């Protein structure tokens, strides 16, 4: 079993810092919405939402987005299990912060931007990720990063959160020999 790269308190600190950075970069609180990418980004978006609500002392709009229907590899893999998309507010004119657990190739974020545009025209889209592990295949970068990791392409980065049972931790799993 690999040692965690981030433990629960490190994850908590990273999210608190991201929340403050989002608050710093967006001075009009009511115009910011957090949208978590299914599945790993959704609990993180909710946690960032409560942290930001504490900083701004007002509720923050949060939603979830499934990108399965907008992926570019649909005929290369078994059809993904589609998760709910819930965006109970108008994104037009808002700053939407997409939230995901791990930024890797960038293809999921590309699909998420396409999917989001079907709901309206945000004034600006930003990206917050807990882990940036490199190996981008598209010209995409995150605006808010919890931790940058150098990884080999065949390693697997697992973000485990208490929302799905167990404890908060991030581990890097080596490929089997």
């Amino acid at each position, binding site marked *: 079993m690999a040692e965690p790269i981030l433990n629960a308190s490190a994850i908590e600190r990273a999210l608190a810092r991201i929340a403050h950075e989002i608050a710093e970069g967006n001075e009009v609180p009511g115009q910011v919405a957090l949208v978590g990418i299914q599945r790993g980004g959704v609990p993180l978006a909710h946690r960032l939402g409560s942290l930001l609500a504490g900083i701004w002392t007002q509720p923050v709009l949060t939603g979830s987005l*499934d990108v*399965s229907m*907008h992926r570019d590899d649909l005929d290369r*893999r*078994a*059809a*993904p299990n*589609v998760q709910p998309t819930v965006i109970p507010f108008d994104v037009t004119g808002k700053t939407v912060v997409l939230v995901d657990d791990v930024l890797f190739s960038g293809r999921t974020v590309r699909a998420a931007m396409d999917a989001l545009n*079907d709901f309206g025209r945000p004034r600006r889209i930003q990206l917050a990720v807990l882990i940036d592990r490199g190996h981008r295949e598209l010209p995409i970068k995150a605006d808010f990063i919890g931790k940058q990791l150098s990884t080999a392409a065949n390693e697997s980065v697992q973000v485990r959160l208490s929302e799905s049972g167990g404890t908060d931790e991030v581990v890097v799993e080596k490929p089997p020999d």
Partner: protein
Amino acid sequence: MNWNRKHLLDIESLSAEELLIVMDTARAFKAVGERAIKKVPALRGKTVVNLFVEPSTRTRISFELSEQRLSADIINFTAEASSLKKGETLKDTARNLEALNADFIVMRHPAAGAPHFLARVLNASVINAGDGAHEHPTQALLDAFTIREKKGKIAGLNVTILGDILYSRVARSDVWALTKLGARVTLCGPATLVPRVFEQMGCRVTHNMDEAIGEADIINLLRIQHERQRKTMFPSLGEYASLYGLNRSRLACAKPDALIMHPGPINRGVEIDSEVADCARSLILQQVTNGLAVRMAVLFLVNGGKGPQEVAA
């Protein structure tokens, strides 16, 4: 579990788990249909041939709109205006369509098993849109989806299917789907149209209407298929309506929360009275809406079923 089938040919060969995958996926596609922009790029660049060798309006337009909402390119092909009329065999017709690089063939055909045959000879994905009196899988999936949406579950429900069972592919597919999902299915109608042999599919058969609807949570009515009946199976439509037609007084004997379904097209005054068809307990138009979502889900899933089966991170 993931879906890994390239075709949708029938319900009989699917597991309960696979039925649930289609229904769960359909729920996401139903949400797409409720947005301002109802289109997603999932089948962009793919070609779908709608090969309708037997007349169909609602199933064909439902598939067509589903395909458009998935951004596929569409070719429509009907028996009346095709080379099948000129003596071409089904296999040759299909090979020609495949030579156009069709990725999916949605087929309705009067012969049972025709889609299974196509699936064996072609590389394209085949979706059965009704084959003879055999199966109509997407109808059963949308019926199951609608029941689960309205009742919150399927297992343990009493579902009565009423009418022309013998000639109905909808009845066969519904029986497979609903029994696999744990419902108790009762079939009812004149003995000529509802033979006891259907008990072998795991359902109850009765010829007494009041008995059939008394405990039902869902009453699914089927049209009398004049076009498929080779001889007269009952004395008159009037007699059929008086014995087996669903009207308000008969509905009063059913449970107050029993819901009414019908795959359409409905024959008002025969199997269903107008006031019943249009009442708040009728799900007929919701079935049409859900049909779109279910067909989008099926196309989305069989598209993934063509590729290598490992799932990327």
